[in-house]
């Protein structure tokens, strides 16, 4: 265990080693030695630096690896249980999914037919499923109208992810207009959030 700077061998490291460490850390792709050398003073012994770094990161949570003659940092392979092998989940929702989510957020409880009406297109079957899978959308209940359609709403996880206390914190129509996001000619009867939202009783 490292107690203080006197005993810490790391502070003895040259600035060149620190620079290579930072460059590899920040790089979005593995870097070859020539690229690294070009960023450092001419007399840099890049091989010695790499050896030093290799030793420094041996057995650590993060390891320095050489792949196809290029260097990169990678989390240690024995810790792979923490890491996901492949990116299964998209980084951002598709446009259709984001639109569907926004409609559910603004109009909940809302049925599939109503979502389709607002979007003006038939919902692809997977969109709501995707949103339910990542637990941002849930079934709110059935509406007491003919056909008893299932209605959807947002989850607590949705609120946590979007940093909202409740769905009433979503900006309303007037506020969207004042930000310029929403066309200021939109008629007022399209006001998205019903003030009585909480009072609509659905079977939860």
């Amino acid at each position, binding site marked *: 265990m490292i107690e203080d700077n006197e005993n810490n061998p790391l502070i003895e490291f040259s600035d060149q080693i620190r620079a290579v460490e*930072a460059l590899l*850390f*920040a*790089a*979005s*792709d593995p870097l070859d030695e020539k690229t690294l050398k070009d960023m450092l003073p001419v007399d840099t012994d890049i091989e010695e630096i790499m050896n030093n770094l290799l030793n420094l990161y041996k057995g650590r949570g993060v390891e320095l690896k050489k792949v196809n003659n290029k260097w*990169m*940092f*990678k*989390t240690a392979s024995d810790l792979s*249980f*923490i*890491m*996901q*092998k*492949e*990116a299964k*989940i*998209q*980084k*951002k*929702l598709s*446009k259709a999914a*984001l*639109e569907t*989510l*926004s*409609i559910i*957020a*603004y109009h909940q409880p809302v049925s599939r037919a109503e979502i389709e009406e*607002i*979007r*003006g297109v038939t919902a692809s079957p997977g969109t709501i499923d995707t949103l339910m899978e*990542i*637990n941002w959308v849930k079934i709110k209940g059935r509406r007491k109208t003919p056909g008893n359609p299932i209605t959807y709403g947002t989850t607590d*996880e949705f609120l946590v*992810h*979007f*940093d*909202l206390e409740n769905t009433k914190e*979503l*900006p309303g129509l007037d506020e*969207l207009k004042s930000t310029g*996001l*929403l*066309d200021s*000619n*939109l*008629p007022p009867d*399209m006001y*998205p959030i019903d003030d009585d939202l909480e009072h609509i009783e659905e079977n939860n």
Partner: protein
Amino acid sequence: MNDNYNEQLDLFHVNLDGFEGPLDLLLSLAKEQKVDLLEISILELASQYLNFIDQMKKIDIDLAADYIVMASWLAFLKSKLLLPDQDDEDVSAKELSAILAFRLRRLEVMREVGSKLITRDREGIHVFRRGMPENIFLIKNFNHKDTLFDLISSYSGLRNRNYDNSWKPRVFSIFSIEDARNRLEKMLGTIVDWTKIEDFLPVNNDVSEEGVLFRKSSLASIFSASLELSKEGMIEINQNKNFGSIKFKIKENRSNINEMLA
């Protein structure tokens, strides 16, 4: 930022383009006084601003409302500062001056801290985060980068898209002057005595906004058409007193012609 201000000061006599509103202009004028904002002469500042706006008005009549509102407020403040203090006032001139000085100082410090912020070690410019992030299996939703902004702009985009915002002018049903002239000519052919203008109006009992507009337009159009006909010597117009009823009659010789034609 200072260089920026100096550039703007050079433009003082030219235009307002460089300014972010009246407070910005006042702040720049105040800096010309080259004193601490706390010791600034509000009276002098108000005069400078009003002079500047006067000059601007000569060049640019479309001065933004923000500037005009500030000008009238400063004119008010200036008169208060010059007059002896009134007892019945809610807020003294000195207090108003203090509020203005406070607002100027507050805006100035926001600019100062802004320039301090922007010169810090900034991520993505001076300092970097891991360039090759790896997905972490155990943190749910970790890989979702959607923000609240994404959500609300998606909703707005959707609403904008589905709303037909093309402009359609409202079509009013009105009685045109041409229609009025035709109607007058036709009716005067059959009427010989002086007849009130109201009797020439087309019958319309519609009580809606549309109906009211139609009746107003028919009155105006019949009157306009009557002026045309009178100018052409076809009819005579009579009104005994101000706001009295207007009457039309076909000219004698004309009625004879009509009879002959008939």
